[in-house]
């Protein structure tokens, strides 16, 4: 049996909110979510703001501490791993943030920004070797090595995001969490970066967790996709299964909300309302107040994931007889 | 109305000609808008599409005369209802804005004063225009009907709420209500859905489209998203580096794009198609030019696969290749 690269079970992340005299209700950003990832696979996580997708992505690599649940990475239980142990494993798990303007240390030169992971993990012996490796990485992400001694503010948004990618691939990780890596960029730059990320993946065999609110981008990048709503995964499956045979009413809503670049395909949605506050989500199924198919039970029963077809899971009472 | 003579003669709400707006920057003049001409008819909707630095936002804000202090109007005119907005006095402008000419912004939270209830905000807007002589109860009725128009559930309650008690989508609806309150001649929407989630964006786009049809609203919609533009416009102007590259009916832009930039831009948008995953996304090589010293000739030529020798030298003029379809590209100069 092949070991999964990453296996996160019943992961929960609650944020305690500041309360002066008493504890107030925590924000349940992620509430009992399980995901797994094979080596070399791309898992897309799609959801709207407040769905918990970014929190989930950061929690599985322990940049945010999970409240409960279990995470196994490369066969090692890292849920309670100590700082020192974790630091060694960080070589294998990296992140690229959304905002290229805040994810690079403004007081470091590009050579050091990309070179730090190499130095930390002892992958280069000398300053000269570091410079050579960084120059190579710059070329790999499509940047000119003349940028070596520049500072981040001298670079455009697209260039900075390439630097972020170079930093992430520097220690040859097994997993990179890509947190909306192209959302802050223009479409023409986005296309360049998505293609770069695909090329890097096929060259290095690295796995991605690709987080985005943009369904088309997630579809383009992912092998499997999980749809999140209010801290839970409502549906997951292969990219094609999920987008060409969506089962959950929320997935269907999302898909029909995409403004198509085609004036003949006008948006026609009937679902109103907005996602609930993560402090006090509705009882039962969290989507029921907006769901056109909602039944009496949806207010009471929190639906469990049901495997409707092989690898296609949906958490919706409409499918409970298929369990 | 002193300027109704011209208004009656033409169906044109807005005509911009030869507009140039530069910013004084640390590294020299930034040519944000550099010779833009367009017009918009009553009841029609124009989307201005472009990437960052294309000048679309500057153009939109110039129509409202909402430009930062380091902006210089280097030429051209903006004729709104027969009068040049650029030469109006502050007093005349004040009478125009929020009344004949309105705007909806990207960040709904930033556009609402947090200390006023929705009711008093809308009342202020109405009193400026058609609510000037209304009684309190008439005003309230008018506000409720406005909120209904923008599909806000339980409008009576919302009037008594503060902005922070509303979600982003609801705030944007309130701002749209304010923008249509006095039956404006033109509404400018600057990326009104970019800060919203997809499902909420879809609702707002649908709403704007409805309002446009029902109220005969003229709309200028500024967006970076061609998908959004497709949903709300009759015409699209594609901007690049301060210039309009192509201006055409929306269907023509998507079906028969003429300018190489437009057709390449269309191919960079990911869509949910199986073939796309296999073929890969087309990308435009290179990056946006530095607007303090834009490339000579056609500004797109350094990135254009069709670039010819002349493209480095000649700045292309708009050519009407089909009725209402303008393209600024030397490939079409024999059609002029």
């Amino acid at each position, binding site marked *: 049996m092949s070991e999964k690269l990453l296996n996160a079970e019943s992961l929960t992340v609650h944020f305690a909110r500041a309360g002066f005299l008493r504890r107030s209700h925590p924000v349940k950003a992620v509430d009992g979510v399980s995901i797994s990832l094979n080596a070399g696979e791309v898992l897309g996580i799609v959801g709207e703001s407040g769905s918990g997708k970014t929190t989930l992505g*950061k929690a599985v*690599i322990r*940049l945010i501490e999970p409240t409960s649940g279990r995470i196994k990475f490369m066969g090692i239980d890292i849920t309670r791993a100590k*700082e020192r142990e974790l*630091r*060694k494993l*960080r*070589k294998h*798990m*990296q*992140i690229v*943030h*959304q*905002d290229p303007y*805040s*994810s*690079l*240390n*403004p*007081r*470091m030169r590009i050579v050091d920004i990309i070179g*730090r*992971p190499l130095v*930390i*993990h002892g992958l280069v012996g000398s300053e000269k070797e570091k410079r050579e490796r960084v120059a190579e990485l710059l070329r790999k992400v499509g940047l000119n090595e003349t940028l070596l001694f520049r*500072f981040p*503010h*001298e670079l455009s948004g697209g260039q900075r995001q390439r630097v*972020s990618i170079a*930093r992430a691939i520097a*220690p040859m990780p097994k997993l990179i969490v890509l947190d909306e890596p192209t959302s802050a960029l223009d479409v023409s730059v986005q296309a360049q970066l998505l293609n770069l990320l695909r090329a890097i993946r096929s060259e290095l065999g690295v796995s991605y967790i690709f987080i985005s609110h943009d369904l088309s981008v997630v579809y383009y990048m992912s092998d499997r996709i999980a749809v999140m709503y209010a801290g839970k995964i409502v549906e997951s499956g292969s990219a094609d299964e999920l987008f060409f045979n969506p089962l959950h009413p929320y997935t269907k809503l999302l898909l029909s909300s995409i403004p198509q670049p085609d004036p003949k395909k006008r948006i026609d949605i009937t679902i109103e309302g907005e996602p609930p506050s993560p402090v006090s989500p509705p009882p039962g199924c969290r989507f029921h107040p907006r769901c056109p198919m909602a039944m009496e039970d949806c207010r009471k029963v929190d639906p469990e994931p049901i495997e409707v077809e092989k690898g296609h899971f949906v958490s919706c009472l409409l499918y409970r007889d298929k369990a | 109305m002193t300027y109704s003579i011209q208004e009656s003669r033409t169906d044109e709400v807005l005509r911009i000609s030869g507009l140039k707006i530069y910013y004084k920057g*640390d*590294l020299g003049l930034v040519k944000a808008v550099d010779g833009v001409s367009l017009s918009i008819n009553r009841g029609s909707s124009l989307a201005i599409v472009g990437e960052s630095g294309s000048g679309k936002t500057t153009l939109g804000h110039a129509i409202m005369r909402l430009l930062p202090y380091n902006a210089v109007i280097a030429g051209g005119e903006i004729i709104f209802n027969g009068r040049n907005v650029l030469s109006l006095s502050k007093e005349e402008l004040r009478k125009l804005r929020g009344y004949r000419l309105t705007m909806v912004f990207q960040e709904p939270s930033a556009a609402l004063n947090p200390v006023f209830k929705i009711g008093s905000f809308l009342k202020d807007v109405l009193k400026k225009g058609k609510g000037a002589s209304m009684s309190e109860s008439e005003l309230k009725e008018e506000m409720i009907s406005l909120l209904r128009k923008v599909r806000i559930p339980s409008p009576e309650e919302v009037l008594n709420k503060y902005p922070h008690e509303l979600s982003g989508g609801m705030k944007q609806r309130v701002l749209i209500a304010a923008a249509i309150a006095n039956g404006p001649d033109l509404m400018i929407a600057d990326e009104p859905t970019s800060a919203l989630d997809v499902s909420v964006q879809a609702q707002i786009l649908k709403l704007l489209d409805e309002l446009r049809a029902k109220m005969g609203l003229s709309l200028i919609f500024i967006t970076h998203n061609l998908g959004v533009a497709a949903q709300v416009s009759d015409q699209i102007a594609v901007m690049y580096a301060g210039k309009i590259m192509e201006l055409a009916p929306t269907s023509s832009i998507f079906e028969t794009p003429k300018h190489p930039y437009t057709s390449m831009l269309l191919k960079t948008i990911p869509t949910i198609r199986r073939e796309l995953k296999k073929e890969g996304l087309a990308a435009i090589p290179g990056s946006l030019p530095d607007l303090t010293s834009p490339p000579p000739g056609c500004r797109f030529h350094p990135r254009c696969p069709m670039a010819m020798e002349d493209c480095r030298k000649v700045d292309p003029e708009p050519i009407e290749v089909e009725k209402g379809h303008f393209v600024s590209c030397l490939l079409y100069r024999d059609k002029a």
Partner: protein
Amino acid sequence: MSGFLESLLTPQNKMLLRKLRRNKNVLLGGVLVLIFIAIAILSPIISPYSPTSGNLSEALRPPSSNHPFGTDYLGRDILSRVIWGARISLVVAVGGIAISILSGAIIGGFAGYIGGAIDDLTMGVVNILLAFPDILLALFVAAVTGPGLENVILAIGVYNFPQFARIARGAVISVKTSDYVEAARASGETKSSIFFRYVLPNSMSPIVVHATLRTAASILTAAGLSFLGLGVQPPTPEWGAMISEALYYLDAAPYMWVFPGIFLVLTVLGFNLLGDGLNDVLNPRIKD
């Protein structure tokens, strides 16, 4: 350490320097401050007479070619005393600010970086200290420790401490939660490395701005303490003490207080202008 210094200085590239040079406050304030520092450093060379010994037969002479600012009641040359006074003010202000930066910024920055109970406790103390008027704190320290140059420096250091602690904490917290610090954690950086390579260099600019502004206030406080007799003791030439000595001769010898007064005002103005200007240029929230 050189890497740290380099990281502090180099990104202040041409653009920033240009912005600094174009800022009128920075320019005017900078010139005033530079003149002040030059006088302070060069005082032994440029002062025509001894600042502490005078000729009683020459007492209370109005300005003349021999004594451009006149002489005081002990016959000392006021110009020389004003020049040496710059040195005292510089020592007091720089010494006091150095103490408050070292204590305040390190304790505040550390509290912000660690967070949790330590942070709550530190900020509790800081907020209590902030509840007292500055001058009261300084008076208290000066009264407890007694007069003298070192004690004035200590008083200045103590009364500036809570402000620096709070500013440093705020700066550190905003940097600590930034994406690039998270990315550094993801790269496997150790906590101390994150603090010295990422947090510290990026928290400096608000502290620098505040230090400039507080220097102005500290010079005034030092003068105030000396004026009240709690600061630098005679015969040390201190501007506040000089003005205090002039109290008995307000009408008879206005030059005794006018000249130190003018220097005091110009110096404080210089630091304030420089601080405001730096704030405009370095603080990203104020848009240009």
